């Protein structure tokens, strides 16, 4: 444990920003979901670094819950992608024009 915790926090922040950029710039719905996975994992790294910093195991438990949440989220997201593909033969977000508010 020689490295200061700031190193891990910086890596986590960089990964989060990369995920955010991917979320905003990608057009394929599936790749947008992948960017969300990057962001969730960046948050997880933050939790685990905090857990090691304070010597509590609670951060790791929270990271575990985030993993479970990500698995559930991926299930629903992929189902929506399948439905979208069935409806209009594409997962390109530019072509989703039938959503009405």
């Amino acid at each position, binding site marked *: *444990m*020689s*490295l*200061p*915790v*700031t*190193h*891990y926090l*910086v*890596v986590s*922040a*960089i*990964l989060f920003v*990369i*995920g955010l950029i991917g979320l905003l*710039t*990608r*057009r*394929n719905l*599936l*790749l947008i979901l*992948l*960017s969300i*996975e*990057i962001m969730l*994992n960046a948050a997880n*790294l933050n939790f*685990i*670094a905090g*857990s*090691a*910093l*304070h*010597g*509590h*195991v*609670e951060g*790791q*438990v929270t*990271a*575990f*819950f985030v*993993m*479970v*949440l*990500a*698995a*559930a989220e*991926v*299930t*629903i997201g*992929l*189902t929506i*992608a*399948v*439905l979208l*593909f069935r409806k209009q033969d*594409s*997962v*390109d977000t530019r072509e989703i024009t039938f959503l009405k508010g």
Partner: protein
Amino acid sequence: MENLLFYFFSFLAIGSSLGVILNPRPTRALLLLVVTMVALSALYLLLGAFFLSIAQIIVYAGAVLVLFLFVIMLQGIEAEELPLLTRFHPVILVLMLLCSAVLGFFLLRVFTGFTAGAMKGVDGSLQAVGRSLFTDFLLPFELTAILLLLGVFAAIALAKKEDA
């Protein structure tokens, strides 16, 4: 040695996640995300979170990303990505960079002004995490079981064809 491992795996994670958002081919982006997950699990190992490091590989590289791979190979190949420069006006891009630079400057000030104590280290074994999970966090743990069950139901309900 620990520093070397940390820098190697964090650069691996950052580089491959850049590949995920920049690679125009969805399948390759997905495989790069597997590299990111493995590098992150190595970082968890450095932080002493042994159980989560293995869970990361099993859950992400093993289950979630294989699910993704199936769906992408079945139907996600054709959405084409446009380069950033042709999609946005250069003026907008410059403004975006300016805003990000201001935000990044303030974030850096927060980071440099932040002095954390030395890492205490934590027992991240399956035993320790499991004990915390089944004593302090028993209710949330049961709720995640319900969440996963609801996820299964929702996937079946959404994906079922109407006429079937």
